[in-house]
């Protein structure tokens, strides 16, 4: 089942094209990693989906609904934390969650729902500090409270925009564990945008790469693994100055960098080792290497750093 599908979605702010014809698909059960540089259009797309901003042209289908009025209703099945968590800063965590219960029309006892939700995001300690106002929370605590508010009504689709902002390494790990648990146990579909690609690679089942308002590619994590080039890296005792020893032997798919020789694909390393030995080199170390998500993305956008 398709949860979200965008159709040539465009958003222009004055003369700037923030989104330029994005066609993106998120299936039920996906953890969709949305990757792009600052200003690439990630938040803009999330703002359009959540209804905070209106598209200049194009449309999208949410839970199979494409008509604007039907989309508004369909939003009740989703939750989102867009940019910074939307909290009533002068109220406590409990009061923030209580207001969210009222907004969502939760009929169950609010205190029980709040307790259950806070336990789910490991924030049960906040129930003790009932009077502490949200404005006095750390950024990480606010982020988690924002997620608790999003999860209070058991949504089917969760959108998180840079959820790791302000989290310490332990918080980042906890967030990953929580999202994986929600995805695996409750079947929650998640769209998560992040700059921390190493973190996304541990989480996402599908990726969308956006650059300058255009969706460059959508790929599953399995496809990414296949596309990532495997290489064997040999570290030698001396720098290689004469490449002809390999080219004369008809070898092509390799790369030399100082005293390192990178042999791509599944080629046998034996021939290389024998050529190196004949030329008087000594192999100090042998490693296996593959392109990580960041390298893959940077290659895709032409080597520009994030």
């Amino acid at each position, binding site marked *: 089942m398709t949860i979200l599908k965008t159709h040539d979605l465009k958003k222009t702010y004055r003369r700037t094209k923030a989104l330029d014809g994005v066609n993106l698909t998120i299936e039920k059960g996906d953890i969709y990693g949305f990757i792009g540089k600052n200003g690439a259009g990630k938040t803009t797309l999330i703002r359009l989906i959540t*209804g905070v*901003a209106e598209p200049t042209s194009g449309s999208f289908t949410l839970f199979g609904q494409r008509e604007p009025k039907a989309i508004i209703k369909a*939003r009740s099945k989703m939750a989102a934390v*867009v940019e910074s968590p939307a909290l009533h800063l002068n*109220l406590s965590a409990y009061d923030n969650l209580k207001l969210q219960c009222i*907004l969502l029309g939760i009929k169950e006892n609010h205190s029980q729902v709040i307790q259950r939700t806070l336990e789910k995001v490991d924030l049960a300690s906040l129930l003790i500090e009932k009077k502490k106002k949200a404005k006095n929370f750390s950024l990480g605590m606010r982020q988690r409270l924002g997620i608790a*508010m999003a999860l209070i009504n058991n949504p089917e689709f969760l959108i998180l925009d840079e959820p790791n902002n302000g989290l310490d390494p332990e918080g980042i790990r906890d967030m990953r564990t929580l999202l994986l648990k929600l995805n695996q146990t409750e079947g929650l579909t998640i769209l998560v945008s992040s700059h921390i690609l190493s973190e996304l690679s541990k989480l996402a089942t599908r990726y969308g790469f956006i650059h300058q308002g255009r969706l460059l590619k959508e790929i599953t994590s399995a496809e990414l693994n296949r596309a990532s080039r495997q290489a064997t890296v040999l570290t030698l005792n001396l720098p290689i100055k004469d490449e002809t020893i390999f080219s004369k032997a008809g070898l092509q798919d390799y790369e030399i960098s100082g005293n390192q020789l990178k042999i791509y694909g599944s080629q046998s390393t034996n021939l290389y080792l024998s050529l190196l030995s004949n030329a008087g080199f000594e192999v100090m170390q042998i490693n296996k290497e593959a392109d990580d998500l960041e390298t893959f993305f940077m290659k895709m956008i032409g080597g520009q750093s994030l």
Partner: protein
Amino acid sequence: MRRLFALEFARLSKQTSAYVIFILIFILGAFNVFLAHVTVIHGEGGVAIRTFTARSLLESSFQLGQFQILLIGVLSSLFIATDISQGTIRNKIIAGYAKAEIYIVQIMMSVFIAIFGLFLYQILPFAFSWLITFPITQDDQGSLWNFLILMGFGYTLVILGVVLTSWIALKAKNTAGAIIFTILIFALGPTLITIIKSIVEGVLLINIDQYENLALYEQTQKDITSVFEWIYFYQIQRLNGPVSLFDLIFLDRGINFFHPDNQSYIWKMMGTSMVSFALLIGVGARGFSKSDLR
């Protein structure tokens, strides 16, 4: 929409600034009673010849430049602008409410704040004036119904002002901007309206009845040669003090709405108010639906 109202009332009940402002407004109302008490004029034999009446209550309650009206405006703007600046308005959109629905609820909340604020301000003066001048119809307003109609007009104008500032608060999208605009509208609005009114009167050379010295007025009117002179010599003085709302609606203060000649005032006022509300709510909601939030 019911849930949105429930949320907004819960939010208002948890806002400290609301309690502070409402208490302040109530205290101002009590002060009004005290002021009326000390300014009672006694005639021969100690008999009060001017006392605190329903009319004096009305006159003191509906001065646009007065502090209690400004406080009501500031509270409603603050209530709306905080929702936008903290981003909590996004929660409502994400929860599946249409922007137009959210807009209308916000405006209705500002109407509630205006009515409740005026009520808090008037409750003590009203109680005392009732006790002093019972029955209420003893003053020169005519019947109780006449009094209520006049009161209704006063409320309508304050509500219109608050709805206008709420609309601006929703457009401004930040708390400071919303508060500044509110103060400007309530503080400078009456002056601006007076200037516009003066220009209109100057162009039409309409005789207006606030001049007590009619002979002087008629004498000087003969010397008027231009609109500029009219404004400069005869209208600029009106900018000195706060303008009564009843000046703004072109009503004589002692008007009896049930007199056949004055019936048209009611319809004009009702028509103007309805059109203004329709514009602010209808056009505002449409604009808000198409706008991007922070």
